């Protein structure tokens, strides 16, 4: 059953906490092997959705399947197929890193798992800390152990809930390199992050949530190209005024430059020629593609 099933199938999931509708008929699926992004502002319902996938929260309505296994009625199989890196930096202060990982393996019924534990420790740069108590680790190190704990039972689906929050640049790059490798090996990755550039560079498809609803569910490239234009950023020489023809498409940017919205790359040459003909000198020119942050902000504003 699990071979041809979607990695995650989410159908009409609703969850209400008192007056707050945390999830409102959320439906989408994540295919096996995808690198999927789950984005949204604080309180959008991302963590509630992840908690529901993991069985920490029970849905009021709807259902979720992990590799074909229902997270409520077939929770044992569903949880064996899912590894979750929680958002909070939690740890058990009684144990060393290796003890923590051995215990976590045992919870999943795995006996001798040291070869895989050593491999994870190596890839996460934790080898030297294997016998160190969790209390003695830095925040970044603890975050890596959380990732290791989620991987210890070799789950085909890995959910990372803001894994790089408060993590330094070097660790972030190492972590993404490791997660990319896992994805290349066939693991399905679901990522929530506030670093939109990370989602843009890593995720093939993205769901955007707001107030418990799915606002968008598209490939990252479709999302970026759907309705957003290129922007030509110009620094005009000597305070020269823009020709009248540009007033409808130009606006001043915060750093003193002029931003001109273009429909496509073909317009760049024509725009610059028109400025040259009007005698407008330029000190600086930059062509900027829309990024996920532009899309995100625009969509959230539209939905407000």
């Amino acid at each position, binding site marked *: 059953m699990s071979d041809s099933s979607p990695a995650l199938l989410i159908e009409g999931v609703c969850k209400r*906490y008192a007056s707050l509708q945390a999830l409102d008929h959320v439906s989408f699926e994540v295919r096996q092997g995808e690198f999927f992004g789950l984005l949204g502002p604080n309180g959008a319902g991302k963590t509630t959705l992840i*908690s529901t996938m*993991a*069985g*920490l*929260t*029970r849905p009021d309505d709807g259902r979720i399947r992990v590799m074909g296994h229902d997270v409520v009625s077939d*929770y*044992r*199989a569903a*949880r*064996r197929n*899912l590894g*979750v890196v*929680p958002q*909070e930096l*939690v*740890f*058990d*202060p*009684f*144990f060393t890193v290796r*003890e923590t990982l051995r*215990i*976590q*393996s*045992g*919870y*999943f*019924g*795995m*006996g001798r798992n040291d070869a895989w534990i050593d491999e994870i420790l190596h890839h996460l740069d934790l080898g030297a800390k294997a016998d160190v108590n969790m209390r003695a680790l830095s925040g970044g190190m603890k975050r890596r152990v959380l990732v290791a*704990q989620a991987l210890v039972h070799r789950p085909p689906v890995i959910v990372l809930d803001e894994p790089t929050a408060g993590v330094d640049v070097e660790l972030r790059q190492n972590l993404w390199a490791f997660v990319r490798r896992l994805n290349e090996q066939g693991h399905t990755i679901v990522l929530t992050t506030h670093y939109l550039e990370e989602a843009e560079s890593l995720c093939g498809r993205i769901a955007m949530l707001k107030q418990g609803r799915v606002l968008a569910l598209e490939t990252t490239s479709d999302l970026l190209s759907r309705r957003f234009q290129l922007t030509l950023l110009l620094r005009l020489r000597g305070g020269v005024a823009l020709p009248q023809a540009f007033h409808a498409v130009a606006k001043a940017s915060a750093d003193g430059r002029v931003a001109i919205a273009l429909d496509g790359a073909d317009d760049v040459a024509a725009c610059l020629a028109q400025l040259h003909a009007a005698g407008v000198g330029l000190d600086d020119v930059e062509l900027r593609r829309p990024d996920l942050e532009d899309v995100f902000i625009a969509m959230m504003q539209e939905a407000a």
Partner: protein
Amino acid sequence: MSKALRTLMYKELLRFWKVGFQTVGAPVLTALLYLLVFSHVLDRQVEVYGGVGYTAFLVPGLIMMSLLQNAFSNSSSSLIQSKVTGNLVFVLLTPISYREFFAAYVLAAVIRGLLVGAGVWAVTLWFVDLPYAHPLWILVFASLGGAIMASLGVIAGIWADKFDQLAAFQNFVVMPLTFLSGVFYSIHSLPEFWQRVSHVNPFFYMIDGFRYGFFGQSDVSPWISALVAGGSFVALALVTLNMLARGYKLRS
């Protein structure tokens, strides 16, 4: 016993063993201090059963009191710590069933209770020669008492959201029931009203039955005590399993 259950039990055992000085050594010392003070003051003045000196009478009570309190502490403190620090999520994310969860926490807590009880017994060997009239009853009541308190500890650990709520449970429920159960006296030495009150305290039956295992004498029949203790365990186990199955305060 599944690998998952064994691992969770092992984790619980390792947790208290790593701080054994505090979780085993300290309660043994406390019991020893009780013994030194009470036996010094009362040994020549009180004879509870015929031919049984007060110090000998006191020792099984102290062993059982330490066993019960530590079985309760193990499951309750582990759960509240894991809840407050958030690391209980590592258990909740796994395929461990609620029955395995219950069994692991109870078994580990019973083992800690038995270990502390054995420690108290070992240090009191210096002070008194105890008879062992019915060793099987000793084991039955030690295990049942530990299991009752371990279940109560799971309930308290799940119910409490803060450490002070758990402390209140311990100070206002567990301690009074333990101290008013006949650890330090036979209930026959109480006025009739308080004797009747003692008979509704399940802790009294655990300690009385346990003491019967040593002296072959008790305030009530060991069979009645076993029935009350067994019934109490079944009732508490059902309540605990129901809470765990519903995910009460564990899964939203």
